[in-house]
C-alpha cells in the first residue's frame, strides 16, 4: 500500500512539480477559458442575427408580394442556409485547420484565429437554438406589436427576441459548456490550451496517467461549476414568470 502511494507521489512530482510543469495546465486553462468566452460571444451575436433572418423568411416569405424586399430576404436566407449546412456538416477541427492554414494563413495570432473559428462554428448551432426560441413565441405577440404601430423590425427586436432569448437562455448556456470541451482540439494548430498543457507534460515525462486525469478533472470541475450556474439562472428565470 505504501509502495503504491509512493509511486503515485513520485508520479505526481515528476508530472507537476518538477520544472514547474503545472504551469502548462494553469496557463492552458486560461487560454481555454478565453477562447471559449469570446467564441461564445461571437456565436450568440451572429447566431441571433442568423436566427432572425431564418425565422423571418420561414414565416413571411410565402406571403410576401414579389418585389426587391422579397428578393433580398430570399437571397440572405439562402446564404444563411448555406452557412448552416457547411458549418454543421463539417468537423470543427477541420474548420479550425482551414481557418489556420488557408483563410488566415498570414496571421500569427493563432488564438484570435481559434476564437473566430470556434465562434463561427458555434453561431451555426446557436442560430438553430434561437430560431426555435423565436418560433416558440406566440404569433399573437407579433400581431399585437404590429397592431400597436411597431414596424416589423421593432416588433422583432423589442418584443419577440427578448422573450425568445429568455426561453433559450439555458440552451445557450449549455452551448457554452459544449464549446468549452470542443476547444480541446485547439492543440492541432499549436495553441497551448488546457488539453495541450497535458500533452506537453505527457511528451516530456511519457507518463499518461497523471496529466490525462488532471486535465479531465479540470474540465469536469469547470463543467460542473458552469452547469451549477446555469441551474441557478434557470431558477431565477422561472421565478420572474410569476
Amino acid at each position, binding site marked *: 500500500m505504501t509502495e503504491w502511494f509512493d509511486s503515485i507521489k513520485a508520479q505526481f512530482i515528476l508530472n507537476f512539480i518538477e520544472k514547474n510543469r503545472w504551469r502548462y495546465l494553469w496557463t492552458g486553462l486560461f487560454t481555454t477559458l478565453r477562447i471559449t468566452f469570446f467564441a461564445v460571444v461571437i456565436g450568440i451575436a451572429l447566431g441571433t442575427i442568423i436566427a432572425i433572418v431564418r425565422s423571418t423568411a420561414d414565416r413571411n416569405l410565402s406571403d410576401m408580394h414579389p418585389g426587391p424586399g422579397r428578393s433580398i430576404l430570399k437571397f440572405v436566407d439562402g446564404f444563411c442556409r448555406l452557412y448552416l449546412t457547411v458549418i454543421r456538416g463539417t468537423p470543427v477541427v477541420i474548420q479550425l485547420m482551414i481557418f489556420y492554414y488557408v483563410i488566415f494563413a498570414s496571421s500569427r495570432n493563432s488564438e484570435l484565429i481559434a476564437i473566430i473559428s470556434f465562434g463561427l462554428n458555434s453561431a451555426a448551432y446557436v442560430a438553430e437554438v434561437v430560431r426555435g426560441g423565436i418560433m416558440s413565441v406566440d404569433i399573437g405577440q407579433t400581431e399585437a406589436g404590429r397592431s400597436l404601430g411597431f414596424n416589423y423590425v421593432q416588433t422583432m427586436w423589442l418584443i419577440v427576441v427578448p422573450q425568445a432569448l429568455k426561453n433559450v437562455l439555458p440552451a445557450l448556456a449549455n452551448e457554452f459548456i459544449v464549446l468549452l470541451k470542443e476547444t480541446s482540439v485547439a492543440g492541432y494548430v499549436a495553441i497551448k490550451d488546457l488539453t495541450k498543457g497535458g500533452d506537453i507534460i505527457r511528451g516530456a*515525462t511519457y507518463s499518461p496517467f497523471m496529466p490525462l486525469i488532471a486535465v479531465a478533472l479540470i474540465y469536469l470541475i469547470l463543467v460542473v461549476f458552469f452547469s451549477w450556474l446555469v441551474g441557478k439562472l434557470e431558477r431565477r428565470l422561472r421565478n420572474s414568470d410569476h
Partner: protein
Amino acid sequence: MKKIIALVLIMMFCVSGLAFADAKPELHMGTNANFPPYEYHEYIDDVDTIVGIDAEIAAAVAEYLGYELVIDDMEFGAIITAVQTGKIDFGMAGMTVTEERLESVNFSTTYATGIQAIIVPEGSEITSADDLTAEGKNYIIGVQEATTGDLYCTWDIEDEGLGTVDRYKNGADAVQALLTGKVDCVVIDNEPAKAFVAANEGLVILETAYAVEDYAIAIAKDNTELLDKVNEALAALTEDGTIPAIIEKYIPAEEAAE
C-alpha cells in the same frame, strides 16, 4: 431463421479459427508514420503500407524472433501511452532516450543516430543554432509535439524565456506553418527535414545541427522478456549487416557523409 444465423456464425468462427491456426503470433508496433525516411505511408502493389527505416528494421526483428509484425499508426505523443497500457508491444518512431522517458518505459539499444536539424526560409536572419538562443530575439520555433526537438527547444529556449515553441501534431503541419510564416524556423529530425525541404521550394536546412541523438525502441517496463529478445535481435541483425543495409537503402552513405 435464428438457427441459420447461429449456424453461419459458428461456421465463420471455424473458418477464421482455421485461418489463424498456423499464423505466427502478432507483434504490434506503434509509430507515427509521418516521419520520412524512418516511417511513412506508401502504396506498394496498391496496398497502403508503412515503410521506412524503422518499419523495415522492425520487420527484420519480428522475423528474427518469429513474430508477425503489425504496425499501428498513431499520434507520436500517444505511442508511449499505448506501450504502457499494452495496446502495442513496442514503440518505434525515431525515439530518443531521455532521463524522463526512462522513468516510464525501457529502451532497447540504439539502432540509428539522428540529428535535430533547423529548417528556415531562404534568406532568414537565423543562420546558426546559436541564433535561436540569442537574447531578445524571441523567435517562434515550430516543432512536432513531444519529439526531442520539442523537448530541447522547450528546455533551452521557452523555459529560459528566449522565445516561443509552437507544437504541431506532425512535422508536415509544422513545415506548413513555416511556409505561411507563422513560425520563424522548424526544429526536426534531419532526414524528414531533408524530405520536407526537397518537397517545398524556398526552404533550407542550416549547416549547424540543433542536436545529435541516438534512436531506440520503447518497450513497457514490465516486459523485460521482450526487451532482452529485441536487444538480442538488434545485435544479431547489426552483426550480419541487415540493419546497416536498411539504413544505407534509405540514407545513402555519400549523403550521410555531408
